């Protein structure tokens, strides 16, 4: 019995170690390589060059170089894209949560049949591939002169985010006992006051979790931002895709590598600080859904 268990333990341990290597090494490798020159990161002669930076030493005089970062952030003005991403994500998260908490609360408390149908409709909307919707926006946006602005993109991202936000907040609101807002209303609150002063304060964990996922959707989006924004107000992800086209020809792949690492840093922070909320958010949808 014990011998068998040992084998099982070794098997499961080695499986998890292999998975952890697969999950982490690509990031570490790219982070390390972003401080090297291209001849090292994509070394044809010897893969160890990428670790020890042989060519980097020859070309720049040091083992580490900031050339990739300088090229991306200063020469190619990646800071502009970073700023745009900041504006887009902050606005999307704020607006999504405002609309979503109102809607999710109503859906959780309605008790009528149509609330269920709205949720099913939201589920169907959630299934629509984003780019099919974008192909519906482009022509009207061109005609109305709305194309290319950050604000248009923000509104579109908020709307695309709504189905998911509604589902998630609906399941969080459903866990809060009805008595809470009803007793507040007996005490003389209006429905909105009960919502604002009684329910929202106990809902913060759910709101934060949902906000994290709205953030991820806005931050990670490529299909919408790539097609709805002009080149001057691009966000980070389409900008990186742009590097691949233009920079690769000029031999500046390292710009893209540096930009990729820069764009990954906020995501790492997010997981580091909000790991528990992300895990609880993923399961909230599952347990109720």
């Amino acid at each position, binding site marked *: 019995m014990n011998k068998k268990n040992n084998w099982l333990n070794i098997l499961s341990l080695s499986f998890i170690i292999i998975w952890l290597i697969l999950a982490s090494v690509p990031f570490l490798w790219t982070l390390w390589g972003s401080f090297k020159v291209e001849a090292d990161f*994509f070394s044809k002669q010897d893969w160890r060059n*990428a670790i020890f930076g042989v060519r980097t030493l020859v070309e720049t005089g040091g083992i580490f170089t900031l050339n990739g970062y300088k090229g991306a952030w200063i020469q190619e003005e990646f800071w502009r894209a970073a700023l745009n991403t900041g504006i887009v994500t902050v606005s999307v998260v704020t607006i999504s949560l405002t609309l979503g908490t109102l809607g999710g609360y*109503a859906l959780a408390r309605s008790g*009528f049949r149509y609330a269920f149908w709205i949720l099913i409709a939201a589920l169907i909307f959630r299934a629509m591939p984003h780019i*099919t919707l974008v192909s519906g926006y482009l022509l009207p946006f*061109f005609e109305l002169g709305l194309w290319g602005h950050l604000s248009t993109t923000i509104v579109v991202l908020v709307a695309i985010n709504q189905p998911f936000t509604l589902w998630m907040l609906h399941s969080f609101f459903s866990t809060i006992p009805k008595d809470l807002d009803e007793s507040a209303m007996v005490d003389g609150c209006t429905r909105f006051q009960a919502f604002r002063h009684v329910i929202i304060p106990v809902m913060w964990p759910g709101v934060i979790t949902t906000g994290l996922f709205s953030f991820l959707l806005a931050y990670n989006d490529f299909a919408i931002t790539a097609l709805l924004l002009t080149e001057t107000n691009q966000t980070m992800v389409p900008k990186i895709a742009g590097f691949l086209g233009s920079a690769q020809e000029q031999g500046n792949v390292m710009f893209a590598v540096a930009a990729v690492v820069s764009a990954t840093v906020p995501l790492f922070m997010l997981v580091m600080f909000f790991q528990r909320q992300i895990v609880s958010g993923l399961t909230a949808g599952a347990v109720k859904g």
Partner: protein
Amino acid sequence: MPHHTFFKFIWPSALAMLIFIALPIVSISIQSFFIEHEKVLVVVENCTPFGCKKETRVDIEASKVLEEEKPLGRFNWFGTYTNRNHLAFSELNQAWKESQNFNDFLGEVFNLPFYKALSFTLSYTFIVTPLVIIIGFFIALAVNRLPSFFKGPTIFICLLPMIITPLIGSLVLFWMIDAEGIIGSLLQIIFDDQNLSLKASPTLTWVMLFVYGVWHHAPFAFVVFYAGLQTIPRDALESAMIDGANRWEQTRYVIIPHLMPLAVFISLIQLMDNFRVFEPIVGFNAQASATSLSWLIYNDFRSGDGDMLFGSAAATSILTIIGISILMTPVIVRTWSANKPVIGAR
């Protein structure tokens, strides 16, 4: 909650979804019946000392006026749907007549853009989804056995491939797998083939994209299963143990049935997400051997000299939406029949 209060709370959210999700679906269905105007041609007489020649030119001004008057283009009915870039009926017919055997025919069919994209999209969806569920399940079992001190850091690392931007994640892998990257050159040494390149071979490109898909989505399944494992009632496991069930039997008869609803949930989300596969194709620069339906739509807006093929993109979009509806129907019906009594009772 009375109807009017409900309405007051829901309207901003409902309006946003109506305008930006429901209306665009209407808008693409209209667009798909139209096609770009033909360029207005004029015949100009060009006279030189050696005589006069008649030349046909594009009247740019008149074309522009026409475009401004009718931005949708001209009415094309189902023309866009049936042309070579979409359902390609006449090409299919011809291939059927001319090909010697069935394999020949399939080869012809998968050369047509739409069928090529459809075959990859479906393969991706139906290979990645089950693998994600299986691998996520095993990671969850393995993490659950770890001493609790290691669980936090392990979960942290496990989450990374999932939260990473899809385009960035695929680039990070691509730079390693590329012929000049570390894994690519390692493979060249192992197989002793200097020209071995994952990009050059369609099969390897597909495998690479599947690997990326599993890598990116497995953490999601892991997290959901892991949380599910925490809710398994102790006494069920213990009574199974007392009855003499070994570890495998406990897993098979207690754990898996308990996690089954979660597996349904994961496959629902995964079907939606994998059917829209798009970013990895851009990241891996794989369009020569693998395209997806979403990529086709993107390409319609990118190809040509700034000319956006609205009609073509809209037709592909409609076909994509039909595709996802077919995939989702069984799952939605299931969710609906499972949830009906609960919500009705509320």
